[in-house]
């Protein structure tokens, strides 16, 4: 592997990466498009797979596709992607998606929140059909002639560097052709796995907005030209130089339907690690203030509200966050919804959370499924709240994390309407 893998969870991903028979391709995967036979003639197809509450679904049941991130409602963990087609990309209507509660967002090779990702970023998604199609918070655009995916509940959404890091891939820069401080880069995405299918060569645009990261340096195209690394004008072979590329999309001249733009180039391992580190810190800070999401596995009832609760912490976080859960430590569990919104938080999420002691931290053997950390916490409380029932999503914190108030859009509060708990798809426009 070219870049050092910092996160332990990534090892899991590398293993799982072998299952990504489709995701590794730059081509849009075979998602279940919005085609009539799919719903009208179900006897011809197998019963579609849908994730179940309280269970981490097998990744091989998911489909992969990618597109441009065009809209984000971070509080409900939803957004829209302009899904990639071979045809006119600009005409592709934004397609809504929702994160499954355990669904992971990754950016710059590190865990992230949707709010961290700039609109326009090309994101790779692994998604399932809605777990509850009648009450889905996003729907696919009906009767649209584009074959938009019905698999819109994501277990993973990641940017290009994250995908490469996770799958052990790297871009090989072959040639650059510059005119007037902008141009085209020819590159291929190579896999360390010699047996893996070769991706075709790509033409990617580059201009003065592109950032180059080298060691601790942040450079512009002009800087590279000035130092003679890249030509001021014309073509130059880059000799297959390894790099990680950040991809975005913007309108492209000359009637090109699908061509991505390079937003960032990480030229070496040190630069990559700095990017990972920076995003990791952002995410750790977020989780410490918003608490670790988890599934409730089991509740063992005592008398008059006493209970021992077993939860599985969701995956994809920095290991230091998991390490904060220690046996005999104290903490709190608050109810949450599938959006990961706290149930209550008017006086801070701790105000009406179940408080208690961590009895045990258990590392389950084997490889944890995607979405799971493989870490269970047994927690004893003297007053179990309604949100803590098997299959439900909670947020848990060890008492060492800062006890802070959270913004109004991130908790439900008493008197919330049902649409606050279960967002409706109304915010997504339907394009005809």
């Amino acid at each position, binding site marked *: 592997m070219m870049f050092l893998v910092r996160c332990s969870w990534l090892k899991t991903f590398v293993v799982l990466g072998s299952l990504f028979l489709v995701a590794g391709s730059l081509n849009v995967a075979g998602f279940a498009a919005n085609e009539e036979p799919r719903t009208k003639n179900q006897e011809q197809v197998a019963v579609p797979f849908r994730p179940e509450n309280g269970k981490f679904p097998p990744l091989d049941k998911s489909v992969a596709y990618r597109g441009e991130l065009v809209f984000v409602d971070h509080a409900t963990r939803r957004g829209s992607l302009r899904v990639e087609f071979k045809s006119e990309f600009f005409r592709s209507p934004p397609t809504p998606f929702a994160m499954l509660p355990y669904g992971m967002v990754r950016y710059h090779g590190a865990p992230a929140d949707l709010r961290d990702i700039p609109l326009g970023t090309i994101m790779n998604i692994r998604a399932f059909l809605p777990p509850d199609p009648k009450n889905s918070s996003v729907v696919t655009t009906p009767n649209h002639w584009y074959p938009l995916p019905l698999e819109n509940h994501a277990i993973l959404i990641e940017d290009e560097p994250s995908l490469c890091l996770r799958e052990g891939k790297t871009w090989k820069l072959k040639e650059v052709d510059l005119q007037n401080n902008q141009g085209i880069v020819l590159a291929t995405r190579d896999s360390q796995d010699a047996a893996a299918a070769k991706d075709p060569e790509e033409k990617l645009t580059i201009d003065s907005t592109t950032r180059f990261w080298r060691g601790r340096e942040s450079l512009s195209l002009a800087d590279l030209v000035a130092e003679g690394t890249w030509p001021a004008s014309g073509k130059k072979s880059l000799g297959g130089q390894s790099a990680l590329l950040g991809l975005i999309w913007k309108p492209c001249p000359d009637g090109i339907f699908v061509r991505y733009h390079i937003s960032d180039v990480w030229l070496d391992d040190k630069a990559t690690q700095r990017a990972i580190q920076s995003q990791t810190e952002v995410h750790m800070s977020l989780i410490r203030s918003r608490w670790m999401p988890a599934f409730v596995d089991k*509740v063992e009832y005592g008398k008059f509200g006493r*209970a021992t609760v077993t939860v599985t912490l969701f995956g994809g976080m920095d290991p230091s966050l998991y390490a904060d859960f220690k046996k005999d430590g104290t903490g709190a569990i608050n*109810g949450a919804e599938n959006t990961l919104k706290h*149930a209550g938080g008017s006086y801070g999420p701790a105000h009406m959370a179940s408080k208690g002691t961590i009895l045990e931290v258990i590392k389950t053997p084997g490889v944890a499924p995607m979405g799971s950390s493989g870490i269970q916490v047994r927690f004893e409380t003297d*007053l179990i*709240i*309604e949100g803590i029932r098997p299959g439900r999503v909670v947020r848990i914190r060890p008492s060492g994390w800062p006890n802070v108030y959270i913004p109004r859009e991130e908790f439900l509060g008493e008197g919330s309407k*049902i649409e606050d708990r279960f967002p409706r798809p109304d915010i997504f426009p339907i394009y005809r």
Partner: protein
Amino acid sequence: MSLRRHLSPACVLITLSLGFTTAVRAAEPYEAFIEKHCVRCHGQDKQKGDLRFDKLSRDFKLGADTHHWAEAMENVNSGEMPPKKDKEPKPTQAEIAAFVASLDGALKEGRASRMAARPSVTHYRLSRKEYQNTVYDLLGARYNPAIPGGLNEDSLWHGYDRIGSMLSLSPSHVDRYYRAADTVLDRSFPTKSSEARKVRKTAEEMGYGDKNSMKSIQESLDRFGIKRPLRYLLYPGRVPTALSPQWFGKTGPEHSGLYRMRIQASGIRPLGGQPAHLSIGKETGEETVSGLIEFDINAPEDSPKVYEFEVFLDMPSSLNFAVVATEGVDRRAGAAFRNALTSGPAYIFTHSSETRTLNANAPQMFDDKGHSIFSTVLVDWIEWEGPLETKAEKSRREGLMPPDNATPEVVAQYLQRFAERAWRRPVQNHELEEYLKTYRSERTAGEKVAEAYRAALQGVLTSRNFIYLVEGEPKAREQLTDYELASRVSYFLWSSMPDDGLFTAAKGNTLKGEALKKEIDRMLADPRTSRFVDDFSRQWLQLNRVGMFPPDKKLFPNYDPWLETSMRGEVVEYFREMFGKNQPVEGFIHSDWTMANSRLCDFYGLPEPKTEGFQRVSLKPEDHRGGLLTMGAVLGLTSDGTRHRPIHRGVWLSDAILGKTPPSPPANVPAIEPSTAQNPKASLRDKLAVHSKNPNCAACHAKIDPLGFAWDNYDAIGQWRTVEKVPAGLGADPAINPAGTMPDGRAFQDSNAFKQLLIADRDAVARAFIEHLCTYALRRVLTFDDREDIKAIAAEAKKNDYRIKDIVKAVATSELLQKR
């Protein structure tokens, strides 16, 4: 904690009956003691402290120097006198015991005589309860004198609230009697219509707010496909509205009266826990109501039941629900958790299996199998209807109001008929003249007949002849008249005025001999004897003390208001069963059954009864219950809320069961210190043993303590135990030692053996019971003069094997009750 509370009986157990006292004799032991140990400093030669015993009055009935004598007894009892530096020989333990016993006896006799003193005309004020019953039986009017602003609380003497000498009348009383009479007459002869109205509130209306809320709620229900109707979830910790006067529309005092409440409800109990208990009454705190209606709810969630009760309401009146349980949701986080359970858009309850519509931050009320975590009540609807009036109640007022065209003479006749019933005796014309004068002046002022007559009725109801039971006349006589006797037996057995039958018998002067016995038989068969059962059992056994010191919640988490109410109920229902079945008196001491509801069965560890309410349940030896003495109420009424008090138990037993009241303890007895962490754990009995070594105390404790130690197997709330939990100290908690020796030398090993010794003394137990009945019936403290009459009643009762109802009958027909 002061030692007084532990050692209320002081150092000498005196064999004085509850009321009897013995005459002071010249050679009383206290005289010999004074001569030997006191007069050298407080006599003819020296008068230290200006006290000279030979000059103190020995007329204890007069009570002139009572305070000097009491102080002397206190000083000797506490060891202050004779002075320690005195070189003369100190009094022996026996001498001290004899001194205190005889002097205490003399003082008590004096007090009893003063309390029982009867001038030629005696007045015994009706207790609040008797006033309530009397106006109901007289006018069919329901009036609750215990409401704020009602009649003053009655003073108690050894639990009795009807002792004449204790019931005085102050100006504030008079004012309240006027207001009470006004209220009674308003309800009897209402000027505004008060037709019965009915209102029904559904769970949705009570708990889920307006249309906007319901729209939001319906959306939630639809989201989860829930078809079941909404239910109103009640839980321990909050007291939501059960009745609002606004529900009826405009509601005023004229709507006061009897109301019928119907409620469809079900309950969910914690696994292995108590049935849900619902209390409905006026709010007394954030979690509590004064229980007007109390019932267990055994109907399961899927089979709710309609419960129906009738209750008197002073309108406008607001009532609240309270689920009474040992454990509720506590006030943590500023009561936010319990508030989160409040119904509304955030907490939508339909069924224990449908939890997704419940507030995620609210405490869980049901586990994953539908068992309740806390005791809960599910209300579907509630209905109130009233004021209701029965034909019998209306009939009591028929013919009381003169017609609109009545002449003054006719009005006078009406008033006389009413006054004779109200005053419970024939009334002379001149006695009513003042009231008729009032009537005439009202008429002159332009009032209608009914209004003017009402003023006269108020005069009758505020007369001393109504408020008091008046016995005697200026010329002293020993026997009661038949009318006086009719009232006495009526207030004895019915806690109310005589009925027409008794009046007729009194008028015919036939309340004697066999006719009296027949009349008493008739009375005993009347449902109104239920009042006797309620009132006498409560007063005799001093149930007013139950919960006087609320048990510490940390030490006794399973104690709650419903348990306390149930404990009181057990005693009363047990007495009712004994009385109704005419059981022998030893049933008070031991039995293989008791009367219990499900809450008590849970507390005692008995099988849960299949039906609601109190019922007769069997007891096995291993249950460690049976008879009055092992009931939770009796064992708990002497505790201080944290631990049992064997001495208080002994004093109570001596007083209530043996009819002997030990003297009060001296004032300066040091408190019993709790065990410290450095010392071995010691039982309370061990600590008392140290205290009792003091010769000044030993004589008393030897007689009182065994009566209390026998029940050491029962803790402060009456739970069975074999070790005494001592919070601090070294070693194991000490084992209970319930063994002891009776004052007469008979040994016992435990409470069962003690009970057998009491049963062996059934004559004494029966005699004490008779004395209590007589105190209750005569409304005065007994004296030495009553001794022969009591003996005669006891002899009569013994012929019938000391059966309870027969004993009551023997008292009611006794010579003693016919005497002033």
